[in-house]
């Protein structure tokens, strides 16, 4: 059987790192295979498909050495970030860009563009639609359409759904399934629930980029579950296992906080963008905010943080909140991209920034507190590093740590688990959960239904700029918990 793409004895070294990433890696793929590459963050899965496609070393300058690399004759590459793989402002122009590169005559372009958009199920009223107006899922499907324009034998997908919500993820995989006949598909992905029945070969890498296992789904999941768990790869049942292992840790409620909202509105450019009729929130509650892209979930958090204009009644512990300054030591918002919130040059300074308030700290208490936090968050060894040099999961943990040191009464989080592997997600959720048990009120925007199911105690649904439903999840479970609190107090 002929192989369509392969590497033989590949060695690769990143300029800033000491060791080799791959040591004589040999791997080949047959025509028509649907392959899933799994491994912990930083094991080189993405790098490998960039080598297989020839992006390394032709577009990305990284030294490699190998006996032989077979690059497929025609291939397409779908990237992770929907906002940084397009170069044109409109849908039709973006696909036309690919057609131009292939020197397709101009007269044939409009027909071809419509055809491609049909293939990925993007029914637009006008093909001349601004890409900016599309949702994440639609953008990724557009990316698939423009890759299909290349008529590829092999399609590489590098975590195409990592930054996409649940609904978009489903659309993307349905599209991939529809177009994949006769094509070789090589996927790198953490969230694998939706593609288990689709791929017919799974390859697992160790953290050092060595091959651990290679086989079909059933074989992998029956023989390598422990490794998957250890490496933080999502596998079916990961959530259940996590909950089973980390259950029944009831800590007594130390504080009792209360947030009260009535006729609360948030404005952008003098227009009401989000409104909430009435809500009373107590310590121990973890609210998951659901809703489609653009429904107003993030706007709700910005309003609660007083970063946009608001009106109505907003009280924390019976103190009225009118502006950002009123929220000091009361509320804290963790943004989606942790890098936005870093302002100093080392992890340690980052953690102590709020404490010293611009002054040098000599106080032993602060040192101790900062050290405690660093230990809890697993950042102690990295405390002198620049925040930008941390891994994605560490950056996220650091940004949450800076929130914890303020001891906020109300902690707001915007998609904190986006694009994280299982290990980092669980670690983070554990930390937030322990904060909740200390009495901090958690309001978290999330697309992940697993979090809603396993962690949240209350769900807000946002639709078209309004909080349309507010339901307490699992009343009975909560009562039991409350009882536990009662006894411990």
């Amino acid at each position, binding site marked *: 059987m002929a192989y369509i793409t392969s590497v033989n004895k590949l060695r690769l070294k990143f300029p800033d790192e000491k060791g080799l990433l791959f040591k004589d890696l040999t791997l080949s793929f047959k025509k028509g295979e649907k392959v899933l590459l799994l491994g912990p963050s930083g094991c080189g899965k993405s790098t490998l498909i960039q080598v297989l*496609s020839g*992006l390394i070393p*032709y*577009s*990305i300058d990284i030294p490699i050495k190998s006996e032989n690399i077979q690059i497929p004759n025609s291939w*397409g*590459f779908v*990237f992770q*970030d929907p*906002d*940084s*793989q*397009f*170069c*044109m*402002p*409109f849908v*039709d*122009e973006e696909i*036309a*860009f*690919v*057609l*131009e*590169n*292939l*020197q*397709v*005559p*101009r007269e044939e*372009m409009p027909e071809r563009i419509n055809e491609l958009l049909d293939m990925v199920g993007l029914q637009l009223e006008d093909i001349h639609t601004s*890409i*900016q107006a599309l949702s994440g899922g639609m953008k990724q499907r557009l990316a698939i359409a*423009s*890759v299909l324009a*290349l008529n590829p034998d092999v399609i590489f997908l590098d975590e195409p759904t990592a930054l996409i919500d649940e609904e978009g993820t489903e659309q993307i995989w349905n599209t991939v399934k529809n177009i994949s006949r006769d094509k070789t598909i090589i996927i790198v992905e953490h969230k694998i629930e939706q593609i288990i029945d689709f791929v017919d070969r799974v390859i697992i890498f160790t953290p050092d980029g060595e091959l651990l296992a290679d086989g079909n789904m059933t074989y992998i999941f029956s023989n390598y579950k422990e490794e998957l768990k250890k490496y933080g790869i999502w596998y079916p049942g990961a959530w259940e296992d996590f909950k089973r292992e980390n259950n029944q840790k009831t800590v007594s409620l130390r504080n009792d906080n209360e947030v009260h909202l009535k006729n609360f509105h948030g404005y952008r450019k003098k227009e009401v963008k989000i409104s909430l009729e009435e809500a009373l929130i107590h310590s121990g509650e973890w609210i998951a905010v659901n809703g489609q892209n653009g429904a107003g979930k993030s706007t709700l958090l*910005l309003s609660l*943080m007083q*970063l946009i204009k608001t009106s109505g009644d907003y009280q924390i512990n019976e103190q009225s909140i009118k502006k*950002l*300054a009123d929220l*000091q030591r009361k509320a*804290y*918002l963790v*943004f989606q*991209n942790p*890098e*936005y*919130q*870093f*302002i100093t040059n080392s992890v340690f300074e980052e953690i102590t*920034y*709020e404490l010293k*308030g*611009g002054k040098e700290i000599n106080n032993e208490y602060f040192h101790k507190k900062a050290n405690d936090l660093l230990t809890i968050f697993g950042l102690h060894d990295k405390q002198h590093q620049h925040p*930008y040099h941390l891994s994605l999961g560490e950056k996220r943990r650091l940004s949450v740590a*800076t929130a914890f040191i303020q001891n906020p009464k109300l902690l707001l989080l915007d998609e904190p688990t986006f694009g994280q592997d299982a290990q980092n997600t669980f670690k983070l959720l554990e930390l937030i959960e322990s904060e909740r048990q200390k009495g901090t009120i958690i309001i978290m925007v999330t697309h992940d239904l697993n979090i809603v199911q396993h962690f949240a105690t209350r769900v807000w649904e946002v639709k078209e700029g309004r909080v349309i439903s507010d339901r307490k999840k699992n009343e009975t479970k909560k009562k039991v918990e409350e009882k536990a609190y009662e006894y411990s107090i």
Partner: protein
Amino acid sequence: MNTAFKENWLHKINPSLKLLTISFLFVFAITIHHFNFMITFTLSVSILFIFCTGHPYKHILLFLLPFLLIFLSTAASMILFGKGETTLYKWGILHITEESLYRGLHLGLRALTFAMMGLLFALTTKPVQLFYSLMQQLKLQPKYAYSFMAAIRLIPIMIEELQTIRDAHKVRGVQTQKGMNSLLKSIKSLPIPLLSQSIRRAFRIAVAMESKRFNSSNERTFYYQVGFSHYDLLFIGYFILSISLAYLFAINFPFFPVSDVRY
């Protein structure tokens, strides 16, 4: 520009031709030293600017506001401190002469025409059309054209990002501290996250473009064929005619009894 507007004939002119014509008029405006001609020249440009861009008058007036300021500041500095013989008014170091008054107004008008011509171009040209035209008519290399188009796409994303970073820093308490030092710190803290995001994004887009077989050495076809039409003749015709008329009018019926404003 994302404001709603009608497309009219100025939008249909070949962008390269429009660019060249307007650049030529820029140079031409510098060579005008005749005050009366400058007035009529300004009129002929402003007719196009005010009535033919297809944007609502309200927007046009709004766009004009900053340029009136430019007009006033350019004119005022020359009027108040310029040299001249016939004194009109003198108070301390302020010394207004007839010559400096005309010269100041002349410079002010020149600044105003520059602004109007620049806006005329910007308001009636889509970036994508401009770069397609530059590639087709002026043989600009595709690698430059597409880098510019990709960069233009990044601008709104960057503006949005800047706002988010500022909010994120506010939450961290960057702005709540008082004093010069923390103000400086808050200004200093913005460019690093913004640039680090943009550089990475630009790199990713570049890789994505190459993965879609973008190759500057290859021949390519074009989705938009940008050609010439009778509107181009109309555009050039308008300027030839209106400028000639402006010149004749200014020579034969001068508004002010001055010719050359140079002193």
